[in-house]
């Protein structure tokens, strides 16, 4: 048995360190590592995005991410999973979420990685705001569009 991975924060305000996440789960008994990065896209439904901003209910999001990972590790034989989600401002091209699934073989690595990102998008209490040149909107909540809202200076 390999020791439990060192605890990494589920939520982070800075850039995601993929190498650190990978090191937290990969061992010499894992022949397969499947990684998913969600990155900030410039175009959303034809509109140009300047920046994404993420907000969470942090205590609940941490519990939910831990539950999703535990579920995947139980369901997919030998899989170990690391996850990190970014909060606050996420510049274009940078990762807002990373999932790393290590497993003895590739089928389980792909399945665990896919399960975790799907579950995060479905269940984790995290919200994405798209910042446009002339306003901002919470994704999935189009009535939230605020014309004139501009991204404030980075914190």
């Amino acid at each position, binding site marked *: 048995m390999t020791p439990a991975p060192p605890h990494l924060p589920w939520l982070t305000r800075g850039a995601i360190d993929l190498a650190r996440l990978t090191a937290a789960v990969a061992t010499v008994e894992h022949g397969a590592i499947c990684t998913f990065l969600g990155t900030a896209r410039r175009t959303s439904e034809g509109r140009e995005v300047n920046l994404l901003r993420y907000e969470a*209910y942090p205590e609940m999001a941490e519990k939910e991410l831990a539950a999703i990972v535990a579920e995947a590790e139980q369901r997919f034989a030998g899989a170990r999973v690391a996850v990190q*989600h970014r909060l606050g401002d996420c510049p274009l091209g940078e990762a807002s979420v990373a999932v790393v699934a290590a497993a003895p073989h590739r089928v389980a690595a792909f399945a665990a990685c896919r399960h975790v990102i799907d579950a*995060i*998008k479905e269940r984790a*209490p995290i*919200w994405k705001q798209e910042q446009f040149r002339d306003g901002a909107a*919470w994704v999935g909540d189009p*009535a*939230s569009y605020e014309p004139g809202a501009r991204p404030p200076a980075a914190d």
Partner: protein
Amino acid sequence: MAATTHSHRILLFAGVAQRAGAREWRVDVAAGSTVAELREELARRHPWLRELPVAFAVNQALAAPTTRLAAGDELALLPPVSGG
């Protein structure tokens, strides 16, 4: 005997916080009230809530409409999630 009430903080997020212009609300609810009753009470005060498919969390877990609220419960209003 007068009905007991509890005072609750309700955490607000994303588009809900934006519309509310606040990060939390305080409400008093009668002891033994359900999540559905709380939702109705909030919607009476903030009619725009009816347009949004919000969910409720009680103590950091999704709650069913039939869940009964107890003193000290941490409540939150969750608009549709969009992480990832």
